[in-house]
């Protein structure tokens, strides 16, 4: 088990008038190489949860284990943990600060105490992964386009050679082409590099198309945990907690109700297309 959360609870503003419980007794196990989609309404606790995974927030109660070790035990090196569990915040381009793109990406490895040359190698590798061309290495990160900035910022985390990559709404505010690029990159990272991916997203379409496991949060608790197909089959309950299934799910259910024998569990467009064509062929024969 790569990451394990045990009875994890967290309350904001403990012992003040503004006390708000954000997480209530979360139990969660994450295996190496999983691609997890994390969904939930704004304020459901997903952003708080992911910050527990690399030790940025200390739980009010409960434990966090990484590779079987309690990260809040005396003497555990949290900075070392953060080089294994990379966290890309929402709008990560807001963290860029160096004079050149290359230097900014070298910040992470530099903090790991690697030599200048090793840092450069890692940065070059990470920038190639995210598709930033070499002629941009020496420009100021503030001169990049929105999508490039975001990819450069993701490279800044990847350069630390992470084993787990957590991304909070990585496609927020990007145009469709930019979204596609980022999501393809994430899939590539998992398939080619074997990095465990935890993707926080509002877009059910994205989660449906990319994740193998889907966890839905509601008011600080896990409401659903399973394959996207299984979770989306509860689309009526999802609506009650302010979420929705992908558009396709609704179309398939509607078709079924109107008498076309389609597979209602289809959650992506290609799946739906196949199922509809098959149903039509059967009907005509």
């Amino acid at each position, binding site marked *: 088990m790569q990451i394990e959360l045990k009875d994890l609870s967290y309350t904001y503003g403990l012992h003040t*008038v503004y006390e708000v419980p954000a997480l209530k007794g979360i139990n969660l196990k994450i295996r190496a190489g999983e691609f997890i989609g994390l969904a939930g309404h704004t304020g459901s606790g997903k952003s708080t949860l992911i910050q527990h995974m690399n030790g940025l927030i200390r739980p009010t109660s409960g434990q966090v284990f990484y590779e079987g070790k309690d990260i809040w035990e005396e003497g555990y090196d949290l900075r070392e943990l953060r080089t294994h569990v990379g966290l890309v*915040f929402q709008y990560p381009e*807001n963290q860029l600060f160096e004079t050149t793109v290359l230097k900014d990406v070298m*910040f992470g490895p530099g903090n790991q105490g690697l030599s200048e040359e090793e840092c450069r190698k890692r940065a070059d590798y990470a920038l190639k992964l995210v598709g930033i061309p070499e002629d941009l290495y020496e420009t100021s990160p503030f001169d990049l386009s929105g999508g490039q900035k975001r990819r450069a910022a993701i490279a*800044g*985390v990847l350069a630390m050679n992470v084993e787990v990559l957590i991304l909070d709404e990585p496609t927020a505010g990007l145009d469709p082409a930019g979204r596609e690029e980022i999501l393809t990159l994430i899939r590539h990272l998992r398939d080619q590099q074997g990095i465990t991916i935890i993707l926080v997203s509002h877009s059910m379409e994205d989660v449906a198309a990319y994740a193998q496991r889907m966890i839905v949060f509601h008011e600080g608790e896990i409401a659903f945990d399973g394959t996207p197909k299984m979770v989306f089959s509860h689309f009526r309950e999802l609506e009650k907690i302010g979420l929705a299934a992908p558009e396709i799910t609704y179309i398939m259910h509607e078709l079924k109700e109107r008498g076309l024998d389609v597979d209602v569990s289809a959650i992506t467009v290609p799946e739906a297309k196949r199922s509809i064509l098959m149903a039509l062929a059967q009907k005509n024969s």
Partner: protein
Amino acid sequence: MGELTLGQYYPVDSVLHRLDPRVKFVGTIVYIVGLFQVRGVFGYLFAAAVLLLLIFLSKVPFRFILKSLKPVFFLLIITMLFNVLLTPGTVLWKWWILRITKEGLRQAVTMGLRLVFLVCGSSIMTLTTTPNALTDAMERLFSFLKIIRVPVHEIAMMMSIALRFIPILTEELDKIKKAQMARGADFESGGVIRRLKAMIPLLVPLFVSAFRRANDLAMAMEARCYHGGSGRTQMKPLRYRRRDAAAYILMAVFLGICIVFRITGL
């Protein structure tokens, strides 16, 4: 970063919370003026009684009032120490160049009490009034300065924007700090130079974001035809009610009593 007490507003519903912010602002000044009138034991007891009554009325827990004394604690100690040691008069105790006089002790206690009462009194105002209501009150109270071309509205607007931005930038800084920590940044260890250097990854993004926000806000204000103070009305204009008038009368009574204490020297 979470314990920033600049906006220390304590959200409960009390008589004091409901008062017009102008009343509370004037009231605080009246209380301070009254405080400097009294000099005898009974006068101070009276001032203390009024303060306790106000704290009771405000429904703010007593420890929040005490917390406001923390930043002035050293000032308090130093003021009292100087007064004890440097006031000339009947010597009670002497050692080397240090001596304590009867007048000095008296002076130190009075000064100490005044300072404590003053800070507690004004923190009752800040605890029961939101910073925005307070700037609103100040804008109205000082609007007479417009005659001598003081840009009262603009100053008040700048103050409320600054106040509004403090929590936003605090939150932003917290986010940036976490993002850099996620990249292995270390803000806790190392010498002064290293720690200062570690601030660069925080300050650059913070300034970039502050400028961006300022730009956005200016644009949004212009898009809504903001052009400064002249002819501008308010969405929630301050309006005096019965209780505000009653509060003003009570203030006058308080000040009267304080002046009586001053004249009789009690």
